């Protein structure tokens, strides 16, 4: 047996022995464990699985053991991922720091920073949030105004961030700040810092959305002191690091999505509940519209599969990858619009006993679907990217996306 086969056998055995049965298979919303200083476990199994994986260093299996990682080779890491998937093990924790900041710190951080920041991160002791978007920036990410002013051994940060997921529950933030206003090009003069969310002058307020309470926060900085050793990478060189971070966002999001039970509402089955027999012409026409949407969703799922096959065959998938977020978010919105047509006022409930739990969940998901075509790169930005990078259409003399 080769070394890697041995590793596979051992890993499989360890997982089978150590991953509690109750944590195999997808988790319902709210049942995932978020690592951090105030980590909470809903069950004893969750605690066990968290601690066992932590102690193996397998929160970050491919990081060096020096920083709390598992020290696995890429081949071993791949085997571990396969075995986790085979057993349908849930991730022992969700941690944006590990998935997004971690790789950038490994690449760009100083030795001191790696020691100080990576080790507790790898032990799941710190909950991280992201401070990129700002109220005035929108799709124009580089339009950063939150200022970090040099004050000798520290920066003084003033400004605000928006769309910070779980900003009110996080321990630390990695954050883009403006450290130089003199350049005409706004991508210059931006720096990446990490800051303590418990520091004086930091306030995180959850944002109310059209769908109600949300996990997004607006975060305000009022003369927040950030020690200079918390600058990551070069001063004014943050834009490059930010782009690198965002490259990790997609895979982080997909990891998150893979393990949470999808709150997927199946159009045709709900249609079957509310419109069991389409008898009138308008019901028949409505059903046909729904069928078309369901077929389109099928075409999208086939495209996900095809992208995977092309990638494995070593073919360029940039043209397909560029459509995925756009298509998925627009199809979801379209699907909920159809559900509202089908369900009538049953999909227009806000709260109260008059509507079933599923009906209220659909109303909320419908309203939230409007967020999905805006957040994480609006549909307009996606279309611009396709036009320019995939179709090679010429740049307008000036301008870009909403």
């Amino acid at each position, binding site marked *: 047996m080769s070394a890697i086969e041995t590793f596979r056998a051992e890993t499989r055995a360890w997982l089978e022995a150590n991953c509690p049965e109750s944590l195999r298979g997808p988790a319902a919303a709210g049942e995932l464990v978020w690592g951090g200083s105030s980590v909470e476990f809903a069950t004893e199994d969750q605690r066990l699985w968290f601690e066992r994986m932590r102690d193996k260093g397998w929160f970050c299996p491919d990081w060096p053991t020096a920083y709390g990682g598992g020290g696995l080779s890429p081949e071993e890491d791949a085997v571990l991922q396969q075995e986790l998937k085979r057993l349908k093990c849930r991730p022992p924790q969700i941690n944006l720091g590990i998935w997004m900041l971690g790789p950038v710190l490994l690449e760009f951080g100083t030795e001191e920073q790696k020691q100080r920041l990576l080790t507790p991160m790898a032990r799941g002791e710190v909950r991280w949030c992201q401070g990129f978007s700002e109220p005035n920036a929108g799709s*124009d990410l580089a339009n950063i105004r939150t200022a970090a002013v040099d004050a000798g051994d520290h920066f003084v940060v003033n400004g605000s961030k928006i769309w910070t997921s779980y900003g009110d529950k996080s321990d630390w933030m990695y954050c883009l700040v403006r450290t130089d206003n003199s350049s005409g090009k706004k991508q210059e003069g931006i720096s990446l810092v990490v800051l303590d969310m418990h520091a004086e002058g930091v306030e995180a307020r959850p*944002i109310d959305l059209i769908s109600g309470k949300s996990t997004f926060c607006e975060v305000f900085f009022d003369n927040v002191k950030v020690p200079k050793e918390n600058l990551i990478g070069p001063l004014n060189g943050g834009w490059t690091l930010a782009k690198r971070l965002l490259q990790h966002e997609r895979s982080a999001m997909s990891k998150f999505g893979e393990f949470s039970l999808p709150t997927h509402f199946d159009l045709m089955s709900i249609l079957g509940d509310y419109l069991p027999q389409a008898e009138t012409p*308008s019901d028949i026409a409505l059903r046909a519209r729904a069928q078309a949407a369901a077929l389109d969703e099928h075409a999208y799922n086939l495209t996900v599969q095809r992208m995977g096959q092309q990638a494995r065959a070593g073919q360029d998938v940039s043209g397909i990858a560029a459509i995925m977020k756009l298509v998925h978010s627009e199809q979801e919105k379209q699907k909920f619009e159809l559900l*509202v047509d089908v369900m009538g*006022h049953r999909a227009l409930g806000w709260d109260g006993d008059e*509507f079933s739990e599923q009906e209220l969940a659909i109303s909320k998901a419908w309203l939230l679907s*409007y967020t999905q075509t805006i957040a994480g790169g609006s549909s307009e930005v996606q279309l611009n990217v396709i036009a320019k990078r995939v179709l090679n259409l010429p740049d307008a003399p000036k*301008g870009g996306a*909403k």
Partner: protein
Amino acid sequence: MSLIYNEEQRMLLDTAQEFFAERSPVASLRALRDSGDELGFEPAVWQEMTELGWSAIPFPESLGGLEFGYTGMGAVFESAGRHLSASPLLSSIVLCGSILELGGSEAQQSRWLAELIAGSKRLALAVDEGARHDPARISLSAVRTDTGFQLDGDKVMVVDGLQADGWIVAARTGEADDALSLFIVPAGTPGVELKRQNLIDSRNTARLCLQHVQVGPEQLIGELDRGAQVLEQALDRGRACIAAELQGACEALFQTTLEYLRTRVQFDVPIGSFQALQHRAAWMHVELELARSSLMAALDAIDSGSDQAPRLVSLAKWKVGQMADKVSSESIQMHGGIGVTDELDVGLYFKRIRVLQALLGDADYHLERAASLLDAA
């Protein structure tokens, strides 16, 4: 056919715009919502509306009305739509008032109509039973008894049903599709139960549950089994007024969106200079103009007593509804991140628009109705 407001109607429109802007702006709706107000409108505002005579607009002079017609009523609804102003004008005046005007006995009219117009009493119409509007499938039953009628069944989406002084209930009294009868059920009648249906638009919407409810023969409106025609005529007036409210709401939302496009700067230019957004905004303008024409035709057809009124009302509710779906969706998207927060009013417009779209028949319903009325012609 007149498709524009005449001078008097235009004056009314201006007055109404000013009134709602001052007395019932969007902030009022937000306050009602945040306080969880069950009534869903401000009684003082409603009182002022009645003093301005708006509750008397559609009725003949003989019944204490102003005979100003539904085009005038449309002007008021349009203005209310612009500011998302809530009042029982639709439920108590247009719907229940019309039924009493068209089908009520003198006794019923004298008992109720003056008080409805004065705002001292309110009635609410109970029609819908299923998830979507479909008066042909009413199943709430009214059975003759020794002393009158017994009503059993549930109604949903009763607009302004909570805290009303009574309800006009459409009940099935025979097997034929249109064998419907209309009954007044005064508040306080035993066996009546109300439940709040808290919809996304935060208005007063109720489920009305009737269990062995006894009403006297004097509560029957018009003849037994012959209520469908009066009901449909009243519903059509309501649908046209809803279309007017939708049109007003969409025009206001569109103006807000245009203003955002003109002033919001990204990538160093106003986002309204991006051609893709310009073209989409231009299409919204197109839809608003087409919807406006359909709306005016419907209001005019009601006022002129045209036999085309039902078809034109369905055309209007369909076209305005199509437009409204598009304008409300696009407005959120064009506002970007801030558009999905509760901080802006965009979401409030969106939610009210979507409820109005569903109310008394959504676009699908009225497409089929308009088409079948054309086939029948």
